[in-house]
């Protein structure tokens, strides 16, 4: 299946697609990240030196309340 460049560029600018929040987070740091009215996706991302799990967090605007273009 060929990769459509237009789709790729559109996806990057679309707030209703998940975009990664830079950095890696520990479980107890999530409460500083989470804001109302957004959807989040959390992915495991290895462990730190102390053996604590690290997570990468993705955020998006829910599709039904996306602002008009």
């Amino acid at each position, binding site marked *: 299946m060929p990769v459509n460049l237009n789709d790729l*560029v559109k996806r990057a600018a679309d707030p209703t697609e998940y975009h990664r929040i830079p950095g890696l987070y520990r479980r107890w740091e999530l409460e500083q990240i989470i804001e109302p009215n957004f959807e989040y996706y959390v992915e495991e991302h290895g462990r730190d030196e102390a053996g604590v799990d690290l997570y990468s967090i993705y955020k998006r605007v829910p599709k039904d309340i996306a602002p008009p273009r």
Partner: protein
Amino acid sequence: MHYQWRDFRNGLMNELNRPHACGVFQAARVKHPCFGPFESPGSLVAWMLDYSTHPREDEDAALRAIQSSYEAGDEKAFWMALTALGLWPVLEWVFCRVRPRCETDHEAASEIWAALEGCLTDEAFWLEARIAKRLMLKLWCKAARSLQAESIEARRLEKLTAALPDSDQNSPFLCEPSSGEEPEYDSGELKDLASSLTCTFRLSEADADLVVRHAVAGDSLADLARERGVSHSMLRQRYSRAIRRLRETLPNSAGPDVTLSALRELGMRKNEAGAVSEAPNSPFLN
């Protein structure tokens, strides 16, 4: 949709930072030992961009592993983005040379992207040494060749358009996409236009959609070819045929007596047209 070169880069960066991208990379790390030292796709890109840290053979090995992952997996956009970002100076070099021959960044990026996709599917290309340098030249040649073919086609269309009466030149169906800001069309409008082309000009649905997407919405033929899984040249030929058919069928293009297209509809060959026009009593002229 028209975008700038920086939007293209943002799109590539976004592919590396999508959910599951790390998972895809981690799975490839198990399969390809040369990815081992890199925790994430971002660290591999950083390593590839820092030429002072590694010998060329290691870079070639990493590029071969990327190409093999591209061929093997479903996440083609991810692997293409990784290749493009890891070889970003190569792409910039090609862009600087291709951009003056294009009207927009969008067009140049599409050509480079199509060329990169072609190279990634050519397995033999990745077997030899000095991949980055050869890729740079190959991308440039491929993109330049494709642009040259497009420019020949554009000149041909220009000649055809110039040969038509003035009223035809104002037809929205015969205009090439403009280079400036394109108005945004919603998909409903485009569908309506395509179906009116199908009804009025008896174009096939696929051809009507092609004309509307390229001439009205401004999508490049290279992108449309990729979307439809056909070659660029084949789609360009198809577009030319559809445009020719529109020209032939437009009511205003018909002269007072008879046109070649009308004769063709009657099943006559082009070279018989002269003979017919010299015969005023011919039944075809009535």
